[in-house]
């Protein structure tokens, strides 16, 4: 019995191997590819009536809560029913999740994504976004803050509409580490292991370059790699405790850290009275999260309606009060609570951000990203 059993299983194995080989062979003939884009066929999004159903993917913390919030107002005004999903936690992983769909020309039912500048550009370059005709968005382009009208990643705003802007800089526990004022101070062995950095390549690495006197926009690949090396050494020595996403705010609240690279609008989620966002002496990084229209987006008319709706200052003001990032709409400053209107982190003067740099990608992303991921997964 045993011998026969073994023979039979050998035969089965042979059949299986043959089938797998055949299957792979067929795949090779098919020659289809995974990933990659279709740059040649950029389309312009076509508007339509503002009605029906609208699905939006946005970051957590970007929408005021409550039964009478901005979404409810939009639904009431237009009759559109909104499915608002907070599934963008990180640009990279959101892209990783959507890429297989976008490749097929689908957006997973979503009409709007909200992604950061460089990710919007990456998606556009891969042919995953539709262009926007300014005539379809009269309110948006009338009320947009002039500084946002023509960013380097999207001159003339062909495919992106800012949702909000923020600054990358230093979060400091002023009671425990009042001396931290520059990104260089994070490398000071004092209170070792009590500092964190963001895990998104384009936030800590350019800030470290700035601190070394290198302009990140002009930086070469070697500049990026050198800065990554410096961070890597600090991680290995235990100087840097963790690489975080938004969860550095928890570490600050719990008192686990005294200094972090973090975002200017996070004050509302840090429950530590001594925590303070500081503009690094050498400057900050400036970025926007942008609404974009992916390929295959259904109901573009409602998406345009939404964009125009939130670009009305009186609609955007309560949203700005909740989000506490920099609103993209001109005139909001006069409509919010006076203490917020005076907050330089929400309404920064050009002087305040004079030394800041636009968030950018390295010249050749692949080796830089690989080196960075090696540091992150040390």
């Amino acid at each position, binding site marked *: 019995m045993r011998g026969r059993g073994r023979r039979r299983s050998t035969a089965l194995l042979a059949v299986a191997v043959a089938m797998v080989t055949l299957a792979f062979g067929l795949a090779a003939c098919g020659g289809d*590819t995974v990933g*990659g884009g279709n740059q040649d066929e950029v389309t312009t999004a076509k508007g339509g009536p503002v009605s029906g159903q609208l699905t939006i993917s946005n970051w957590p913390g970007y929408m005021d809560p409550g039964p009478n919030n901005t979404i409810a107002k939009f639904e009431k005004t237009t009759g559109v029913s909104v499915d608002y999903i907070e599934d963008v936690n990180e640009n990279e992983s959101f892209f990783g999740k959507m890429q297989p769909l976008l490749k097929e020309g689908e957006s997973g039912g979503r009409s709007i994504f909200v992604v950061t500048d460089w990710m919007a550009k990456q998606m556009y370059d891969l042919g995953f976004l539709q262009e926007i005709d300014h005539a379809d968005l009269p309110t948006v382009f009338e009320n947009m803050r002039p500084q946002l009208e023509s960013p380097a990643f999207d001159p003339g705003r062909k495919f992106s509409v800012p949702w909000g802007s923020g600054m990358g800089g230093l979060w400091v526990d002023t009671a425990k580490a009042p001396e931290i004022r520059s990104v260089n101070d994070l490398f000071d062995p004092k209170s070792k292991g009590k500092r964190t950095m963001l895990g998104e390549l384009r936030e800590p690495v350019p800030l470290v370059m700035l601190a070394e006197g290198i302009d990140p926009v002009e930086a070469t690949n070697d500049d990026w790699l050198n800065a990554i090396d410096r961070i890597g050494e600090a991680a290995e020595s235990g100087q840097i405790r963790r690489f975080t996403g938004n969860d550095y705010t928890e570490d600050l609240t719990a008192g686990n850290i005294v200094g972090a690279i973090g975002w200017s609008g996070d004050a509302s989620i840090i429950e530590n009275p001594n925590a303070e966002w500081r503009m690094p002496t050498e400057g900050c990084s400036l970025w926007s999260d942008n609404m974009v229209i992916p390929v295959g987006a259904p109901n573009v008319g409602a998406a345009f309606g939404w964009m125009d709706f939130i670009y009305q200052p009186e609609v955007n003001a309560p949203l700005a009060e909740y989000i506490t990032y920099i609103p993209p709409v001109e005139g909001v400053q006069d409509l919010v609570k006076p203490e917020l209107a005076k907050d330089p982190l929400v309404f920064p003067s050009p002087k305040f951000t004079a030394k800041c740099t636009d968030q950018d990608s390295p010249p050749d992303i692949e080796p830089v990203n690989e080196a960075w991921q090696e540091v992150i997964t040390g």
Partner: protein
Amino acid sequence: MSLRQRLVPYWLLGPGLLWLIIFFVVPMYFMGELALRSGSLTTGYTFDWAWANFPDSLSGHTEQIGRSFFYAGTATILALLIGYPLAYAIAFRAGRYRTLLLFAVIAPFFTTYLIRTIAWKTILSDSSPLVSVLQTLSLVPPDGRVLATSGAVIAGLTYNFLPFMILPLYANLERLDLSLVEAAKDLYSSSRQAFLRVTLPLTMPGIVAGVLLTFIPAFGDYINAQLLGGTQQAMVGNVIQSLYLNQRDYPEAAALSFLMMALILGIVSLYIRFAGTGAFMGGDEEEAT
């Protein structure tokens, strides 16, 4: 046996087989095919028998693989050391509290895994009461910490997979015929001898099952390292995640996943053979002969 009767086992096998084909064989095929592609994100990945992905995926990641072994192994041993006495106590000493205690073992599953791990971040945070106690007892240096260390990751793994160790052990111990232990004692063996020569060998199947159920998921886990670890605690799961979602080197990620699967399969086969548990694979052998 009529033909119909002979077909019955295959009919019974059907649903499970179908499930495995749809959710295991098909995804495995796609992953295997993906692992043999080459290219880049911008140009797209094309299938061209790129076997080099396999050695490539190992290079630079041996440290994390070794770390995964160490963490998962330590967590498994700890879970066994904690779980065996506990399962023993529940099986033989709990009396009417047995159901309650078993419930207590399973209770954590009513909260999701992620929330439980995040809760440990609070429990182990630098200024938490637990860490102060450990510092007072000099188990942690005064300026030291628990969170964001290897210890925290191992503790998290042990905690999260402990029920997978306890339940098979309990199921096995519960069936243990205590009269055999009694007989050993009647034959003048000490309690220790009775345990080592009767109880332990008879519960070996439970130990093997518990060790496998703990070690395999712990090896591939990345949540504990991500939430409880620091910069030098990444496990192989974190590397695969980074390859997939951050570097989007899908072929290399798939290749590394395959290699880890093969590695685990190899180790498990060796372990089962080494542990020599006729009882564990018993059903199989009886059928074969």
